[in-house]
């Protein structure tokens, strides 16, 4: 960067206070969808016969898990993109998505645990989905840890990208291994939903999934912009330092 003045665009971040109708539409749409979803979950959806109202956690739990899965897929996508193109944008995508994914994986585990407490009386069960989610949590926490412990920016991005791909490929293998292991050592299952779901429940579930997807998109957008701005700030700091050294 040979310029000494900031490109004005850099300071106008797509985060924080609302700017323009596009953001308004996005946030407004998300809020509306969330309101609809809440109505569906708590009013529209029928009460489950066996478990009672606590079953409604199911909609959050699945939504959360879905969001986490999408997030980690995007991490893999960003990782491939970065290794291929080597432009930072792909890395912003990967790290932002990883962070969101870890948050929602935690929420998936928490809601699953709470649900299990009521239905089975235990805080934890080695249900294959919960178990895989737990392993997933560790894999992506390790992803974030790797990034933390690598100081050089270019190295960090490259190594994280490799791990992002490796980790994602591992997930189906983990899933299969846990499934088979469980089939030999049966444990209570959290999710009893499946075929034969009443239509109201299915609709509620689909809207929940849609809501969480939109939520993910909005969060990712924020996080992406934050990462880019932080990177720009760091670049400018380095420019300052370089200029100070040269004395120009």
């Amino acid at each position, binding site marked *: 960067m040979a310029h000494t*003045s900031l490109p004005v665009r*850099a300071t106008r971040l797509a985060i924080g206070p609302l700017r323009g109708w596009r953001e308004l539409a996005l946030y407004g749409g998300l809020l509306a969808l969330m309101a609809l979803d809440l109505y569906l979950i708590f009013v529209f959806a029928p009460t489950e016969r066996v478990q009672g109202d606590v079953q409604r956690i199911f909609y959050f739990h699945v939504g959360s898990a879905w969001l986490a899965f999408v997030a980690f897929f995007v991490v893999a996508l960003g990782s491939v993109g970065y290794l291929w193109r080597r432009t930072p944008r792909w890395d912003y995508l990967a790290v932002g998505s990883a962070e969101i994914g870890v948050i929602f994986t935690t929420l998936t585990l928490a809601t699953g645990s709470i649900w299990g407490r009521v239905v089975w009386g235990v805080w934890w069960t080695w249900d294959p989905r919960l178990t895989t989610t737990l392993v997933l949590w560790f894999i992506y926490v390790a992803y974030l840890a790797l990034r933390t412990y690598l100081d050089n920016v270019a190295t960090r991005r490259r190594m994280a990208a490799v791990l992002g791909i490796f980790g994602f490929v591992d997930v189906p293998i983990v899933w299969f291994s846990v499934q088979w292991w469980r089939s030999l050592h049966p444990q209570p299952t959290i999710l009893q939903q499946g075929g034969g779901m009443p239509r109201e429940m299915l609709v509620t579930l689909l809207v929940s999934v849609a809501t969480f997807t939109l939520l993910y998109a909005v969060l990712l957008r924020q996080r992406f912009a934050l990462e880019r701005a932080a990177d720009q700030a760091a670049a400018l700091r380095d420019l*300052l330092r370089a200029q100070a050294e040269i004395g120009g």
Partner: protein
Amino acid sequence: MMSGLWYLAVGYGVMWLGLFGYLVYVAGRVRAVRDELAEVQRQLAGRDVEQGRVVR
């Protein structure tokens, strides 16, 4: 079933807590980056003025 509702409320609360907690965290980082950008821009502009260059 009452205990079930209590847990439902807890689960619901956990979700919202998690979401808002993350939003607050991101907002905090956003603020920090904004401040840093403003600071750096100020320093660069100051340097430009010092050396008689044009500030855009």
